[in-house]
Structure formats: C-alpha cells, structure tokens
C-alpha cells in the first residue's frame, strides 16, 4: 500500500495539488484505521488527509481511480485471471466488430437501455464490461490515452441516442406537466452520468492492469480549474469557473473593506468609559472607544468587453456581477471603443444572463467601429464619470491594452490614478505578449499601482490576496499633494 500511496501523492503533485510531507504521513497513519478492502473508505480517508481544497476534488477522483481502481472490484469478479483472459477476447471481438459490430452494439444498446431504465447497478456493471470488451478495441501495450477508448466506446454505442431514448422512455406515461418532465429528464441524465463514470472507471482499470498506474495517470491529466487559461477556456470549463467566482468576489470585497478598517479604533467614548469605571470604584481603568464606522469598499471596475476579450470579458463581468450583488458601492463600466455604465444591469437581485443580454442591447459600448480604443474609453469616462472616482475608491481595469494603434491617452489614466486611492490593471494576456503588436501595456504601466497578469483563477486569487496587503495609497496621496 505504501509505495502506491507515494506514487499517488507524486501524481497529485504533478497535477498541481499541493500535498505536504506531513499530510502524506497523516494519510499513511489514517489508512491504518480504514477498511482497506472498502474502496469508499480508502477514498474518504485519502481525500480527508491529502486534499484540502474542494477545487481539487476532480483531479483527486481521477488519480484515485487510476491508482486505487483495482481495489475492491465488484462482486463475482476476482482480481487475477480476469484481465489476462480478457484481452485476447477483446482483440477477437474487435476483429469481428470491424464487419458485424453493429449487430453486437445494437444488442448491447438495448440491454444497456434496459438496465438503465431498471436502475439495476449490477447488470449495468456487467454490460459495461462487455461493452469495453467488444467495442473499445483495447490492445495491450498500445500507448493510447484512456479518453480515446472512452469516446470510442461511446461513439460505437451511440451514446447520444442512448441518452435521448432513456429520457424518452423515462418520461413516457406519467408526465402531466413541465415539472414532471424536468424531474424525469434529470434522473435520466443522472443515470447516464453514472454509466459514463463507470465506463471510464472500467477502461482505466483495464489500462492500469496493462501499463501500470503512472503511465495511465499521465494520459489523464487535465489542468486544475485554478489553472485553466481564461482566454481559451471551453464553455464547460467556463461554467465550472463561474461557480468559483462568487467566493472570490466576496473575498475581494472583504479584503478591501478590511484594509480600511484595520488599525483605526474609533474615537474615545467618554460616556461608556465613565460608566465602566464605576465597576472599579471610579478609577478610569479601561478607556472605551466608539466602534469605528463600518465602511463599505468603493470599487470602480472598467472592463474591456471587445471581441478579442470575449471569453475573458464574460469572466470579468461575472466577477463584476458577483461583487455588485453583494456591495452597493460598486460602479462598473464596460467599454469597447465607447464606454458606458453597466452598474444597474448587474445590481443586487439581477440575473447574470439577463444582465449580459441587456448590456449587449442597451449599453452604448461602440463609438466608431467596435474595435477596442482605450484612449477614447478613458476620455468618455473622464468626461461623464470623473466624479465617480474619489480618494476613497479603488479602480480596477481589466483588458489586454490592445489599442488598435490609436491614441492611448496615457495622461487620462494618470489623472485617474492620482485621484483614486489605488488603481490596478489586470491583463489576461501572457506577460510575454505584452507590448507586442498593438498592445500598449507598458505605456500605461507607470500610472498604475499594480499591474497583474491574470490568466487563471489562481492568478486572480493571488491578486486578491495581495491587493489587501498594500498600504501604498495613503503615501501616494501625500506625494500627490506635495
């Protein structure tokens, strides 16, 4: 068990999950109190000791299936013999499948649909093993990724049709209204998802038996949600990312609020000090202070939402939305080559998707041709909204600073920087591309208090952690007044 554990930890680290030495020891210690024949117990034990962040759960699950998938195989199947016996079998049916595979797939299809409808887990397991035997074309020793076999089985099985027919079959009969339809469709999807998970597991199991866990794990690595490039995220990844934004936004707002509160006690509360002194026979022992006034962070967000930023813009607007729905003193602006205020669309109680639609329809973001123009956006901002920025506000600009060779109006940004408490710029492009082509990042850089590359959730998190630690703004105002 111990060598497997260290390999497993090494794999987690390779994916980017931080596991310390102490935690590995804890895991080893904890395993002594788990039933090693029980997959679930081993998984819970390792999960609790090694992975301390819910974002890392998916990576943990994948690695666990690879390294411990052979644990506690389903009833009626023994560990040895099975895998040695299967491969030639599979190879044979692979050859057959070339010609007459449709018939077999068809028969399997019906049987699977039946098992899914009945919710019969054991039969499903059995059928999945047969499906992998007959349809995956798994050959021992071939260095092919696990995902390839998965898609191959699903394709030859016609997984989409299976999902559709399962939905239809489950909805047949007792649907009286939309609510029924939805509930039944969801249970159908649940069962399909179960099929997919089990299929993936079965394939991983076979591959590991053939090639050993390390090699298989390498082919299954996917970036952690924290490390996905926001500019090139797929829709599915974006959805997962969106779920992590609300806590981040809350964190950003609390950090900003905290910074302003810390170190400042309220004024002396004479009445309470004297009252308290009565307990000590009139000795003014404990001075009492008025609680400092609770201040809400003032945040001004300027977001580039032009075409080149589309994916990232969705992310920043999500962030805007999340911050805006919790704090009233946030003003948000979007721009392409024109700039407009979008605070109201994303205010409390609003729905994000509605807000995006409204922004696209109602806000005047295009001024001339719909290509980013930071200079003009800044000009419009200063013309119409210069009063928004006060010495108490933090300004955050998000954008790639690709100005399409137009006038960047650097002076205007400097003006904002002098007025604001602090000004930060988040650039979603890799640092090495800054100042290439039409990017004018370095021209803006001297004016900002902090310039951050934010291509991933992890980087955004780092920015948020740091932003609260800065104490610069006060000193800066002092300088400005000299």
């Amino acid at each position, binding site marked *: 068990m111990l060598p497997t554990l260290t390999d497993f930890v090494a794999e987690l680290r390779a994916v980017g999950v931080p596991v310390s030495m102490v935690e590995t020891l804890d895991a080893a210690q904890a395993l002594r109190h788990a*039933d090693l024949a029980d997959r679930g117990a081993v998984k*819970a034990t390792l999960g609790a000791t090694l*992975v*301390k962040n819910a974002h890392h759960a998916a990576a943990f699950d994948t690695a666990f299936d690879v390294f411990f998938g052979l644990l506690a195989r389903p009833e009626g199947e023994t560990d040895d013999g099975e895998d040695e016996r299967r491969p030639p079998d599979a190879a044979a049916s692979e050859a057959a499948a070339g010609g007459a595979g449709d018939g077999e797939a068809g028969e399997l299809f019906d049987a699977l649909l039946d098992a899914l409808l009945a919710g019969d887990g054991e039969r499903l397991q059995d059928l999945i093993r047969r499906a992998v035997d007959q349809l995956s074309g798994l050959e021992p020793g071939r260095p092919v990724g696990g995902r390839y076999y998965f898609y191959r089985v699903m394709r030859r099985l016609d997984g989409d049709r299976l999902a559709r027919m399962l939905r239809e079959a489950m909805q047949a009969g007792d649907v009286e209204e*939309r*609510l029924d339809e939805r509930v039944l469709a*969801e249970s159908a999807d649940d069962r399909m998802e179960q099929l997919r998970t089990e299929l993936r597991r079965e394939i991983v199991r076979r591959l590991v038996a053939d090639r050993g866990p390390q090699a298989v794990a390498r082919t299954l690595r996917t970036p952690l949600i924290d490390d996905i490039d926001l500019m090139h995220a797929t829709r599915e990844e974006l959805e997962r990312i969106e779920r992590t934004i609300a806590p981040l936004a809350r964190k950003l707002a609390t950090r900003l609020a905290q910074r302003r509160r810390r170190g400042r006690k309220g004024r002396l509360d004479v009445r309470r000090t004297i009252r308290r002194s009565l307990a*000590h*026979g009139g*000795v003014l022992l404990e001075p009492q202070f008025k609680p400092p006034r609770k201040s809400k962070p003032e945040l001004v967000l300027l977001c580039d939402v032009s075409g080149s930023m589309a994916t990232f813009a969705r992310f920043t607007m999500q962030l805007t939305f999340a911050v805006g729905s919790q704090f009233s003193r946030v003003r948000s602006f979007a721009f392409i080559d024109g700039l407009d205020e979008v605070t109201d669309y994303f205010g409390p109680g609003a729905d994000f998707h509605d807000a995006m639609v409204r922004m696209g329809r109602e806000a005047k973001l295009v001024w001339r041709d719909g290509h980013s123009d930071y200079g003009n956006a800044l000009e419009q901002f200063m013309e119409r909204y210069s009063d928004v920025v006060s010495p108490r506000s933090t300004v955050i600009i998000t954008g790639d600073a690709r100005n399409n060779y137009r006038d960047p109006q650097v002076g205007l940004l400097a003006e904002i920087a002098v007025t604001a408490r602090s000004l930060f710029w988040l650039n979603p492009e890799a640092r090495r591309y800054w100042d290439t082509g039409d990017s004018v990042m370095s021209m803006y850089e001297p004016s900002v208090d902090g310039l951050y590359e934010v291509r991933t959730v992890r980087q955004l998190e780092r920015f948020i952690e740091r932003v609260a630690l800065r104490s610069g703004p006060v000193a800066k105002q002092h300088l400005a007044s000299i």
Partner: protein
Amino acid sequence: MDAWTNAADVRVALEGTGYLADDRIAQVAFLALRLDKPILAEGPAGVGKTALALALAEASSRRLVRLQCYEGLDEAKALYEWDYHKQLLRLQADEGKAWDDLEGDIFSESFLLTRPLLEAITSPEPVVLLIDEVDRVEIETEALLLEVLDAFQVTIPELGTIQAASRPIVVLTSNNTRELSEALKRRCLFLHVDYPTIDRERAILRARVPDLPESLATRIAQVVRSIREVPIRKAPSVSETIDWARTLLALGVEGIDGTVTADTLNVLLKYQADIDKVARELDLTAEPAE
C-alpha cells in the same frame, strides 16, 4: 464512543441522533476520533456542517462547547480573560498586604474568565468543541487556534501552559468565504460537505418528518434537486427542504405539481429574484410541451 470500532459504528450512532451521515462523513468522523485530529467541514450554508458537531456530541454523550466566530474575534473572547473587576476588588479588600502575596493571588485560576477554547481544554469530562464559521475571523486570529488544535493546550503567561485534561473532538466549519491558511488546513481532516444526493435527502426527510409518506419524500427530494440546478443566489438548504416538507404536510398536499410548488416556493427560497427565476425556469404553471 470507545465501542465504535469502525466507520459503520459511527454512522449507526449518528443515525441514532437523527443525523444521517453518508459513508464518507462517517469515515472521516471515525478517523477524527482515532487520530485525535480536528475535522474541517466546508461547504455551502445549510448542508449540515454544524449539525454534524451537534450529532457527534449527542452520540458520544459529551457536552458541546461552541465558539462562534465573527470578524474581530480576539483572544479575550476566544481563549481567556482576566477578571479585572474581581482582581480590583481583591486588591482593595486586602489593602496593606505584601505585594508578593497579592500577585500570586490575583493571577490564579479563580480570577480567570474562561472562554470557549480554554473551557474545552480544561473541562474535566471530554467535550465536543465546535468552532463555527472559522472563515469569518481574520487570518491573524486563525493563528490563535493553532496551538489549541495542535497540542490541545493553552499557554497563559501568568500561569503557564495548561494541558487538556481530555482530548476534545474538534469540528471546525467554514462557508469558504475566504481561503483558510495552509497551516490550519494541514492540521485538519478536510471534509467537503455538499448538498445530499436525492436518496440521502429522502432518507433525511423521512427521519426528520416521520409522518411524510415515502412517495412525497422522493418527490420533494427530486424537485429540490431540480431547483438547486438553477443558478440562483441562495439554493435551498437541507433545513429549508425539511421546512418545505412540513409545510406541504400541514397543507395536506398529496402530490406536488407546478402550482403547489409555485405557491410554497417562499419556504425554500428567500430572495424574490430567486423565486421569480425558479418559477420561470421550471415553468411551474405551464402545461407539458406535448
């Protein structure tokens, strides 16, 4: 609780108090007892993180000591504080005595106000210590917890180090509003608690609302799951689901259709925008498409 030899025993014991743990929760709770490590339960509000601590206390018949965290919580509120008033009275009562006698006297345990952490440590009989919503305290205050969680001891400069008389079971909960420090996480067993599966939620409903018919419980669990799929501000918690079940039972509802759901949605959801959105997304009042 010494009779608990495996995770299944823990689960049965918890079930006896009305808390239905899944295998994972039971395993982690069992590990916590065996390894003397705190549990850090994290997850959305209302999935039973705090309830786990309450259930553990009841199942092991220990007293529960609760430290509710909030922004600005400090040593004096979490650990201990000297009772100034009493010290002052003592000094005045003994005017004229030698200082050395007095000093030893006023900095003794009878002048100490114990706060939850110290209370959990000094309690003669073992307790369950619940540190609720630990993500609300500032990162600096978190450090305060480390000594307690690590060695189950508290150091008071005037008195020395107080070692725990018995090891408490510690449960920390977090709503994940901020990332907890690595040092704290490293010392804990991490338990991510999410909304229960349909089957488990049904079982919870059956346990908490015994009069609820099986079919209605299933249906409630399904509909609530469906609502949680909608991206809203505050998804219904387990306790809100239970409230909903009680409401439906009180209204004498036999089957749940769109209209009934729409009429009672305010039990599950607490924001008008959420209610509107769910009613729209789930098409609660419409006929089926065919």
